[in-house]
Every structure is written in structure tokens, then in C-alpha cells.
């Protein structure tokens, strides 16, 4: 194994600080968090993440001046057992720096946004002390994500992989004793557990892939594995890639393991944006891209990956149509878009996949954060309306205790859900800045010229149309649904008349929230220039070519682009026809339900997948656990084996063999006999000790005579 090459130029020595900078930030907040002000906590965390971004920029610059040479910067030895040599080595190449830039760049903007968001969130939930903890978790997440993308071996990648899973768990369950409406319940912590456990299933696949890798190649290091794979049997590579796909399905929320991501929306909105839209869930896409040299060896695996992604993209998009929760719509949209990326990397269109990963990070973070702004605005409006209402009818004392009452579940009126789009409407007027930001995100996601989403999505579609027609059609239909559900959301949230007093009284968010959104909006508009489908504009393609070697630079295909644009426009028009023309009124049934009853009910209920999993996995599992605990452990081991067999036998033996007779006549007699003998012997010996010095002297003389006599006569 060769060590990190020496590089004279560049900032590669900074690579470890990608991880250490966020760790320093989290340590400061961990130690001094209780004494610092909220602004200070947020600033420290944002600076730590910002430092990681600056380092990422410097590393990307260094890679470009070194013409894409892969630099492996060894920080420490990790595991050296026999021939296995694992080190903590940072791999800096064009692919990893792309991920670093996305993670730290979007991450920093979300840190800044969270300063404002969490300020209000901790107050709505009545626990200001949890502010610092949030930023500690966020910084930990950035550090773990950096380990994931910079690792030089599958095992190092796995360390980060598990680390981000932990952060995801901690942040989904951030309000672990509440549900999403702020009532006391285990709903949030159950969502966190669900995410963790479903991810464990995926991680299990990843681990098996790693074990096979080690068994077949004896190494985890990327270059060594790729080198060995060239001469390996296709069956082994197929097994590795398919087990790896299970890991990808877990982390990147693909069929069949996507079910955790919608529930993960229980976390605060910055978490949904950072972890469950922009960065962590793209780790699977990164993993496949990183393993490009394995996947390109086995076309069957590529086909399965592409199909998994495409089916997921369509399936999740249909569910998104039937959701009322503003964040759930975006969650299913994320699953769907991740399906696009997975399909792209499955088809071997790694650049298109990474391109979509980057632009999706921009516009989906924008959408989630704007949705967070909408939710906060609605909460403010709700308080405002409630306050006005209460002042009219009750005295002031009552209101102060009100939030506490609600938290304790004593609220007498129905609980207001600020995430429910049926409570919104007409927010274009009350939150104009957020409205325009949301529009930009929507247009980018729907793929309207010239927003970023169009270019990346069309590149995927174009690749699909050339190689896998089925995937192309699945993705095109998914793109239609994408534009439709986003249109539905826009009409329901921002147009028409307010359907709830809270929406009417909603207030615009402060600048600490809107400014990071504006930056993301600009990126969502111009993000396409990263890789325009024109001669000389394949920037990302050339950049990733350093790592991926063979990159297909596709020209613009007007047919594919035209069809997808027409589909998107048609979908938006359809959404206007259904939701925009006649506005939904409070308490009214969704108009789509009247038109497409069964389809909508299915989508609304997530096609009953959770119920299915519950029936075929959770319930049998619980029954087996119940059986093991009750019948096997308690009744068999405890009641029968321990109580009856062991304790019973013991009692029986002691009653029979050690009864009174044997005890007194046998054991007691031995013990007493020993004592008697000792006493009798001592009465004899006592006579020697007569107290006369001269008799002792005689004994000494006799002893000496005996010994000397023995020595002489020997």
C-alpha cells in the first residue's frame, strides 16, 4: 500500500480540518453552550461550518491546479492487522471535493437559517435550553458527512455513513417527547427509531458488501478494490454491487426502504433540509458514483439500480400528489428526486447523477427552508389570532398558561397543525418574500427553463432515452407528477383565500431566515451553468472526468428537453385547472378526490405501504418477540427450567440426602469430633509447658544432643 503522495503545491494539508473545524465548533458549544447567547452559539456553529466550506473551496482549487491528481492525505494509522492496513486517509479528488462543497456550502447556509428558525422553534415548544444542543448536533453532522465523503476506503466511508445515521436519529428525535404538533407523545422518537432501524437494514447490506469485498480482494481501499475487481469473477462483483444497493436504498430512501424518510420530517425543518434533502440522503448516490468502476463491470447490477431508482421516482411522486402536510409533500418529492439520481448513476450517467445531486441540494434545501418559513409564519399568525381571540373572551392570565396547557395535552380546542396545507391559502400576500423564494424552488424542481433543475433532470432523461427506454418513460411520468404536486402545493399554500385565521395573520420571517434562502434561490436559478448541454459548457463533466475517467458529454436534445418541458407545463396547467381555478375552501374535500377517487385515496394513504410493512414485518416480528419473551424465556426457562428443574431438584436432593438424620449424625458428628480430638490432644501437650525454666533448658539440651549426635553418627 502506498502512502499519500507528496504534493508540493496546494492546500491538501488542510484536509483533516474539514472534520476538525466542525468538531471544534461543537466542542465550544458543548462546553460553553450554557453560558453563550443564542446568537453566539449560532455564530460559532456557522463559522465552524463556514470554515469547512472555505477549506473545501481551497481543496477544490488545489485539485484543479494539480489537474485532478488524486491526493491521499494520511492523518493517522487506524487498523493494522496482518495484511489488512487501514488508515485514516483523506481522499481529495474532484468527486469528493464536489460533495464537500455541497455539504459545507448548503450546510453553512442552513446553519445561518437555523439561528433564526430555532430561536422561534424553542420558544414555541417552551424549551429554550435545547438551542445549543441543536447546533452541536448540526456540527457533528457536518463532521461525519465530511468523513463520509473524504474517506479513502469503504470502511472509512462506513464510519461516516453510520455517523450521519446517528445524527439523523438524534435530530429527527430532537423534540423526542413531543409529536409534530407539539403535544406530549412518543411520535417523534418513534420516527427517529424508525429511521435508525430501517437504515440498519440498509447498513447490513453495505456491511455484507464490504465483507465480500474483503473476502475476495483482501482490501477496503478504493483503488485496490477497483484494481482487484478487474480480474475478479463477475458473480462476486454482482454480489458486492447488489448488497451495496441495499445500503443505498436505506440511506438514500429507495424502494423498499424509503419508508423512514417521510416520518423523518418530525425533525425541525433545517434538519429536513440539510440531512433529509440536501446531503445525507445523497450519500447513497455518492457511494454508487464512487464505486463506478465496480458498477460498470456488471450491467445487470446497473440495470437493477436504474430500475429501482426509476420506480422509486414514479412511486414517490404519486404519493406526493395525495399529501396535505407541506413537509411530507417535499419529503416524497425528495424520495422521487433521489430516485432520479439513483436511476442516473445506475445507467452509468454518473455526471448527470452528481449534477442533479448538486442542483437538487440547492432547490430542495430552498424549498424545505421556505416551507419552514411558511410554517413559522403560520405559527406566528396562529399566536396572533389566538391572542386576539383570547383577549376578546378571556383575561390575560389564561393565555400565559395556555401553551403549557397545550403541551400537557389539556388543550380543550382542536390542535392547530401549522404543517397542514388545508390550513393555509392566500399566503402570497402575507409572506411575499417567502412566496417568491418558494416559486423559484418550485420552478427549479418542476424543470422550467432556465432554472437549475431543468438542465440536470434533462441530462438524466436524455441518458435514459438513449440507453434504457423503460427508465425514460418512468422518469418522464414522474417528472409530470413532480410538476403537478408542486403546482398543487403553490396553489394551495399561496393562492386563493386564507382557510384559517392563522394564515390570514401570518407574518413574514426575519432576515436571518430569508437571506440564506435568497442565496439558495440564486443558486437554484443559475445552478444550471455547472453543466450546460452545450459545447464547452460541460464544466462538471470535465471536473468529474478526473475521477470517473470516461464521461459522456451529451449535447442538448431538443426532443427530450421539449417533451419534458411540455409535460411540466401541462402538469402545472392541470394543477391550475384543479386547484387554482376554483380555490379549495375550508373543510372541503380535495377536488382531485372527486375526479380520481381510488387513485387519490391510495396516494393519500401512501399506497398502504406502511400498513403492508406493519402486517408482514412488524407484526410477525412483534409476535415472535412476544413468543420468545413469554413462552420461551419466561415460561420455559424461568418457570419450567429454573423453577421446576433446577430449584426443584435442588430442594429434592437437600430434602432426601441432607435430611436431619444425615445432617446431625453425619456432618455435625464430623465437625464436633474434630473439635474433641483437638481438645484431647492439647491437654497432653499442655503438660510440657510447665513454666520451669530449668526443664526448658533440659529440653534444649536434649535437642542439641539429639541433633549433634545425629550429625556425628551420620
Amino acid at each position, binding site marked *: 500500500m502506498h502512502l499519500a503522495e507528496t504534493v508540493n503545491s496546494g492546500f491538501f494539508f488542510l484536509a483533516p480540518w474539514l472534520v476538525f473545524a466542525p468538531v471544534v465548533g461543537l466542542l465550544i458549544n458543548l462546553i460553553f453552550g450554557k453560558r453563550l447567547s443564542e446568537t453566539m452559539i449560532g455564530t460559532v456553529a456557522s463559522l465552524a461550518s463556514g470554515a469547512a466550506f472555505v477549506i473545501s473551496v481551497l481543496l477544490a482549487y488545489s485539485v484543479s491546479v494539480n489537474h485532478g491528481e488524486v491526493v491521499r492525505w494520511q492523518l493517522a494509522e487506524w487498523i493494522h492487522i496482518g495484511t489488512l492496513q487501514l488508515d485514516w486517509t483523506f481522499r481529495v479528488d474532484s468527486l469528493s471535493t464536489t460533495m464537500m462543497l455541497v455539504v459545507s456550502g448548503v450546510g453553512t447556509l442552513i446553519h445561518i437559517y437555523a439561528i433564526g428558525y430555532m430561536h422561534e422553534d424553542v420558544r414555541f415548544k417552551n424549551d429554550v435550553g435545547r438551542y445549543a444542543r441543536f447546533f452541536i448536533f448540526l456540527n457533528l453532522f457536518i463532521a461525519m458527512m465530511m468523513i463520509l465523503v473524504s474517506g479513502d476506503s469503504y470502511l472509512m466511508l462506513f464510519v461516516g455513513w453510520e455517523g450521519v445515521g446517528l445524527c439523523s436519529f438524534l435530530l429527527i428525535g430532537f423534540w423526542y417527547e413531543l409529536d409534530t404538533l407539539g403535544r406530549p407523545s412518543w411520535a417523534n422518537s418513534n420516527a427517529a427509531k424508525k429511521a435508525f432501524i430501517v437504515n440498519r437494514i440498509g447498513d447490513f447490506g453495505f456491511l455484507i458488501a464490504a465483507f465480500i469485498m474483503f473476502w475476495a480482494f483482501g482490501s477496503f481501499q478504493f483503488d485496490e478494490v477497483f484494481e482487484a475487481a478487474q480480474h475478479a469473477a463477475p458473480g462476486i462483483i454482482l454480489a458486492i454491487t447488489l448488497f451495496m444497493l441495499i445500503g443505498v436504498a436505506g440511506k438514500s430512501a429507495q424502494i423498499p426502504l424509503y419508508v423512514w424518510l417521510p416520518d423523518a420530517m418530525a425533525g425541525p425543518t433545517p434538519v429536513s433540509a440539510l440531512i433529509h434533502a440536501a446531503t445525507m440522503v445523497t450519500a447513497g448516490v455518492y457511494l454508487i458514483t464512487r464505486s463506478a468502476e465496480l458498477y460498470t463491470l456488471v450491467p445487470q447490477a446497473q440495470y437493477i439500480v436504474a430500475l429501482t431508482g426509476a420506480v422509486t421516482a414514479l412511486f414517490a411522486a404519486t404519493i406526493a400528489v395525495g399529501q396535505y402536510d407541506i413537509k411530507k409533500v417535499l419529503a416524497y418529492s425528495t424520495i422521487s428526486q433521489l430516485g432520479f439520481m439513483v436511476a442516473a448513476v445506475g445507467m452509468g450517467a454518473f455526471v448527470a447523477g452528481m449534477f442533479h445531486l448538486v442542483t437538487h441540494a440547492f432547490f430542495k434545501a430552498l424549498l424545505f427552508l421556505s416551507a419552514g418559513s411558511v410554517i413559522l409564519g403560520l405559527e406566528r399568525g396562529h399566536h396572533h389570532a389566538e391572542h386576539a381571540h383570547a383577549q376578546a373572551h378571556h383575561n390575560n392570565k389564561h393565555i400565559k398558561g395556555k401553551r403549557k396547557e397545550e403541551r400537557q395535552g389539556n388543550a380543550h380546542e382542536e390542535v392547530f397543525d401549522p404543517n397542514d396545507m388545508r390550513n393555509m391559502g392566500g399566503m402570497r400576500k402575507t409572506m411575499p418574500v417567502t412566496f417568491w423564494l418558494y416559486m423559484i424552488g418550485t420552478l427549479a424542481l418542476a424543470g422550467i427553463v432556465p432554472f437549475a433543475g431543468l438542465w440536470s433532470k434533462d441530462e438524466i432523461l436524455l441518458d435514459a432515452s438513449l440507453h434504457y427506454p423503460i427508465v425514460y418513460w418512468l422518469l418522464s411520468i414522474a417528472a409530470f407528477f413532480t410538476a403537478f404536486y408542486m403546482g398543487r402545493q403553490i396553489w394551495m399554500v399561496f393562492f386563493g383565500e386564507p382557510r384559517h385565521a392563522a394564515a390570514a395573520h401570518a407574518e413574514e420571517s426575519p432576515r436571518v431566515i430569508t437571506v440564506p434562502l435568497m442565496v439558495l434561490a440564486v443558486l437554484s436559478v443559475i445552478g444550471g451553468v455547472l453543466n450546460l448541454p452545450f459545447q464547452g459548457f460541460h464544466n462538471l463533466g470535465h471536473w468529474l472526468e478526473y475521477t470517473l475517467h470516461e464521461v459522456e458529454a451529451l449535447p442538448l436534445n431538443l426532443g427530450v428537453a421539449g417533451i419534458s418541458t411540455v409535460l411540466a407545463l401541462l402538469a402545472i396547467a392541470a394543477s391550475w385547472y384543479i386547484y387554482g381555478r376554483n380555490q379549495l375552501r375550508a373543510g372541503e374535500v380535495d377536488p382531485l378526490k372527486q375526479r380520481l377517487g381510488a387513485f387519490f385515496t391510495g396516494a393519500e394513504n401512501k399506497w398502504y405501504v406502511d400498513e403492508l410493512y406493519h402486517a408482514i414485518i412488524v407484526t410477525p416480528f412483534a409476535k415472535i418477540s412476544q413468543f420468545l419473551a413469554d413462552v420461551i424465556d419466561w415460561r420455559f426457562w424461568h418457570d419450567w427450567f429454573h423453577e421446576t428443574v433446577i430449584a426443584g431438584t435442588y430442594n429434592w436432593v437437600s430434602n432426601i440426602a441432607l435430611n436431619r438424620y444425615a445432617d446431625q449424625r453425619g456432618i455435625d458428628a464430623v465437625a464436633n469430633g474434630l473439635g474433641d480430638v483437638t481438645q484431647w490432644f492439647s491437654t497432653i*501437650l*499442655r*503438660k*510440657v*509447658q*510447665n*513454666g*520451669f*525454666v*530449668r526443664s526448658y*533448658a*533440659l529440653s534444649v*539440651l536434649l535437642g542439641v544432643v539429639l541433633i549433634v549426635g545425629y550429625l556425628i553418627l551420620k
Partner: protein
Amino acid sequence: MVPVNYYIVLSAILFSIGVVGVLVRRNALIIFMSVELMLNAANLAFVAFSSVIKSFSGQIFVFFVIAVAAAEVAVGLALIVEIFKSKRSIDVDQMSSLKG
């Protein structure tokens, strides 16, 4: 020159007289003198052998024995005085309170 055997026999006789004195007499002072007799019997044997093997080590040993005997006399006489003070007697057979 007197043969060394004579000295050894004399030494043995003196030693035996000392042993018998310790065993049969009850007066602590007499026992004490008998012990001195045994020590000096040993000294005589040391000196005799020393001259036979032409080495000074035996004579040096004798000096140690004399020094230790002097110390022993000092301690022993002090003990006898204390015993006399408490018991008004120096009969060793009366000092048997440690009888088992």
C-alpha cells in the same frame, strides 16, 4: 607443647559442669555463673583450634563472645535485680507463672 586434645577435653569438662549447673541449681545467680562457664569453655575451644590451624579468626571470635557475654551479664543482672524486687527471691522455680 601441650597437645590440642587436652584443651578440648578440658573445654568439654568445663562445658558439662556448666550444663549440669544450669539444670540442677535453682539460684538464678548460680545458673548465671554456669552459663558463663559454658561460654568460656567454648572460648577455650576456639582459641585452641585457632592455634592449631594458624588462623586468627578463632581468636577474633572469642573477643566477640567476651563482648556479648559482658552485655549479657549487664542485662541478666538487671533482670535478676528486678525479679528479686518483685518476688523477694531469686529461686527460678518460683517464676513459673507462664505455666500452660
